[in-house]
């Protein structure tokens, strides 16, 4: 928390110092003022609600898709080899370039941005799952095998707890990536209601950096809260593990 205070103070000083060109970085006090004004704006609240809901769905979908897939690919080598090229070709696809294509197929509603965000947010979870799987102590797996642990229990009793800390880091990364893609898609297409669209509409087009930053503060704040929640979960359930859960 002191860290945040120092950060905000630096921001304020920097903005007021005149080191930066005017209008680029409004002082934090103004941004926060604008932020609280935004909270009273029904349009903004509707956008925020839409973005948040989409975000929750994105994280949910990405998690549900990527963890099982990661476990499958991480543990079955032939499968990993066979799908490797396809995955590596799909992964760098820039979401922005896909917006028109996704719009064409899915329409320009919330489903498009959710699909795009899920696409982008799945990779961190998938990769962290696969890598965490490689890092499980072989001795633990041997132990489980020697007791003929049935597969489902092997997965939820041994594999999941072992990989959980790192996978959770993946989820936290995904959450940020998902939010970024959501807001960017809203921002760039300006079609589906959301924070990004709001920022684009009211901020960027009339050069109101304070509104842009207030919207940014909002996304940052929400990201922060979700991160805190995930971290809490990590500390609560994965306390036995030294790794995981810092930033």
């Amino acid at each position, binding site marked *: 928390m002191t860290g945040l205070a120092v950060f905000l103070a630096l921001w304020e000083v920097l903005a007021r110092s005149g080191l930066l060109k005017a209008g680029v970085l409004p002082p934090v006090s103004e941004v926060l003022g604008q932020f609280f004004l935004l909270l009273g704006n029904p349009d903004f609240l509707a956008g925020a609600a839409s973005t948040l809901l989409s975000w929750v769905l994105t994280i949910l979908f990405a998690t549900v898709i990527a963890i099982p897939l990661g476990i499958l690919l991480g543990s079955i080598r032939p499968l990993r080899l066979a799908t490797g090229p396809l995955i590596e070709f799909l992964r760098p696809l820039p979401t922005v370039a896909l917006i028109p294509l996704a719009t064409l197929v899915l329409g320009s509603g919330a489903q498009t941005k959710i699909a795009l965000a899920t696409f982008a947010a799945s990779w961190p979870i998938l990769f962290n799952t696969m890598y965490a799987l490689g890092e499980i102590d072989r001795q633990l797996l041997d132990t489980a095998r*020697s*007791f003929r642990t*049935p597969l489902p229990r092997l997965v939820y*009793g041994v594999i999941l*707890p072992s990989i959980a800390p790192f996978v959770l880091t993946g989820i936290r990364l995904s959450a940020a990536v998902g939010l970024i893609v959501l807001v960017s898609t809203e921002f760039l297409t300006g079609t589906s209601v959301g924070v990004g669209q709001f920022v684009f509409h009211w901020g960027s087009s009339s050069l109101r950096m304070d509104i842009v930053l207030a919207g940014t503060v909002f996304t940052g704040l929400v990201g922060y809260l979700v991160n805190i929640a995930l971290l809490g979960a990590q500390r609560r359930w994965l306390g036995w593990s030294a790794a995981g859960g810092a930033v």
Partner: protein
Amino acid sequence: MPTMLQVSGLNHRYGGGDGAHVAVRELSFTVEAGQLACIVGPSGCGKSTLLRCIGGLIKPTGGTVRLHGDLVDGVPDDLAVVFQDYSRSLFPWLTVLGNVEFPLRSLKMSRDERRARAREALAWVGLADADRKYPSQLSGGMQQRVSIARALASRPALLLMDEPFASVDAQTRFELEDLLRRVQRERNSTVLLVTHDIDESVYLGDRVLVLSSSPATIVADLPVGLPAERDQITTRESAEFVTLRAEVARLLRDRNAAAEQALAEQVATTEQVSTGRANR
């Protein structure tokens, strides 16, 4: 008695190409059901490898292992293992009780029964009070005892133990030895136990298998003629025990003699080098 375990022509080579290492060579022996066979052999000779092959945890590069006449291909049923690297074989996210219960969960068994069994096994090894701790909160010897309790709780037909008492004090070791013999008699389990303690191998075993240094081959297969009822004090004082013990020690020493000599020479030369340099 049926042949419980039949190892024939077992070979295991780690790696391939230049770095290949033959850990086990042409090993053959059988163990009857209900027997407790102790395995002794020099460090690094291939004892753990042998146990892993028998437990189906690694696939030997040659030869076969049969249990009840069936080829072992994968981990056999009704097996329990106490690993040499006990600390890494405990699940860090489970409590001591959770760890001991773990293998029982795969058995059809009510929650209460499972818990009772786990607690019973923990009491056997003297850890009844530590059931709610996590492995990282235990001392080395306690961790090792947890892994013994876990193996005993699952009441296996075949029990593989890799230096199970290496980290416990002498007194506890005696108690655990007696516990093991008692439990094994009662359940008529078959036990293969690797140990470095020659006294222990004779005291515990119905047989002692002496292995050569790497790659492991069988040097001797000594039946232990001690009575089934053994006692830490009287048994260890019996003439039979003393003879056997000396025999095992001699076998191990002789086998090592060549290697030992080489080692001694090496030490001597490096010694000279080092003392010559280390005048600090």
